[in-house]
């Protein structure tokens, strides 16, 4: 059952990602990205990380993608124009991507640590465990990230003020 669900949502995820690239209308691409985010959340849920899964939905699908859609609506972005790119890219693009992906997977499979694969349902799920780990084991990374976010917020404020005056 878990295997089947994993394959299903994995297929949704990859399908959404491909659809994102081939759609000509920006809003359809954004909607495909939401599908990708949602399927990723469900894969996290399958791994047993329910807190990470729901945070993925709230932050990415619920907040960031809403802002994407908002901007697309505000600018009323229309159809994507054909860039008339090089013929080499047209001919070798997809086979090259395929070959590159295969090489990447092969390298990863060669170097995988045999016993460290995470079985389905084995992650630290509950919110209290995640919180404990954030404030003990990974405290430095957590605080550094929060300072990074703070700097980004201040940057946004500065940019917004400059355009106003």
């Amino acid at each position: 059952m878990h295997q089947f669900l994993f394959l299903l949502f994995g297929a949704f995820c990859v399908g959404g990602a491909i659809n994102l690239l081939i759609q000509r209308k920006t809003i359809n691409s954004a909607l495909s990205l939401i599908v990708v985010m949602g399927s990723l959340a469900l894969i996290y849920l399958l791994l047993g990380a329910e807190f990470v899964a729901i945070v993925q939905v709230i932050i990415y699908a619920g907040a960031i993608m809403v802002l994407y859609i908002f901007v697309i609506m505000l600018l009323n972005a229309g159809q994507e124009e054909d860039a008339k790119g090089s013929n080499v890219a047209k001919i070798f693009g997809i086979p090259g991507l395929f070959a590159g992906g295969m090489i990447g997977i092969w390298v990863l499979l060669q170097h995988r640590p045999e016993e460290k694969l995470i079985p389905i349902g084995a992650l630290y799920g509950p919110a209290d465990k995640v919180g404990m780990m954030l404030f003990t084991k990974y405290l430095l990374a957590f605080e550094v990230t929060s300072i990074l976010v703070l700097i980004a917020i201040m940057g946004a404020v500065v940019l917004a003020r400059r355009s106003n005056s």
Partner: protein
Amino acid sequence: MSALTFLIVAVIKIAVTLGVLLTVVAYTVWLERKVVGRMQNRWGPSRVGPFGLLQPLADGIKFLLKEDLTPPYVEKNIYLLAPGLSLIMALTSIALVPIGPVIHLFGISTPVQITGVVNAAGQPSDINVGILIVLGITSLGVYGIALAGWSSNSKYSLLGSLRASAQMVSYEVSLGLSLVGVLLMSSTLSLSGIVHAQLGTWFGFIPQWFIFRGQFVAFFIYMMAAFAETNRIPFDLPEAETELVAGYHTEYSAMKFAMFFMAEYANMVTVACIASVMFLGGWSGPSLPFLPVAVQAFLPLLWFSSKIFFFLFLYIWIRGTLPRFRYDQLMAFGWKFLFPLALANVIVTAFFVAIRA
């Protein structure tokens, strides 16, 4: 509990809850028209059935039988997707709400909550990130409105949905933060766990609800943010009929319009459910030992539904009382007043929780 019993119980619970929810939605519309009518010194619906009680039925038939127009030049797929998305998101979150305690029927015990089960120790348990899932579903509800306005290819719709998405994203922050105080005090994210943290009384009659345990500021922040989230007066700018015709659902007719309408009222019910679970103790209430046992079994449901009724009445009351915000006032209120207040509430609550621990 075998898998088959589990499935049957789940289907029955879903059917009953959904049926009750849709009935409540239909009769909230009736109640609103009736109460606002009396507030404006007129009768409201009074022709169909006694006291106009069959009016929702007549409205439903009218919505079903009206011509379903699709304007030209709409973005067809998204135009058709949007009302369904709105309604599904509005109806889903009721599954997380603990409506009552464990009931025992025909040798099966189960909590009155779609996602709730009874664990091996006989205690009710549900999804342990329940409140976050409710918030997640609420935040996904924005898409229905945003896409409806965008795909309609009309400036009124687009303006309405731009306003709606900006407003919902802004007030979601205060809404989420106002709940943090309660979560700190109950130290769980599961909704039935939060209700169980509020059982018990002081001096035998004051219930230990979180609103009486210092969370009343959070309660008011929650209520105001919730009004904005559900696009109700005084925050109904997305569908301000004096400026935008009907806002994001201007181009929708017949059943598709009805779906938006139902979604709005279902959201009101959900928000009322969450408010009563988080702040007013959910289904808990004074026990009345002098009543017969058979009646006492229904008391939790009675308490819960009377709390919901209180909130729905409050919605209607405020609609009949207050004018609409101006848009800059709305944003300033959300970001400069509610948001700092919610942050302050989180810090003060965390301080007291830390002292107690």
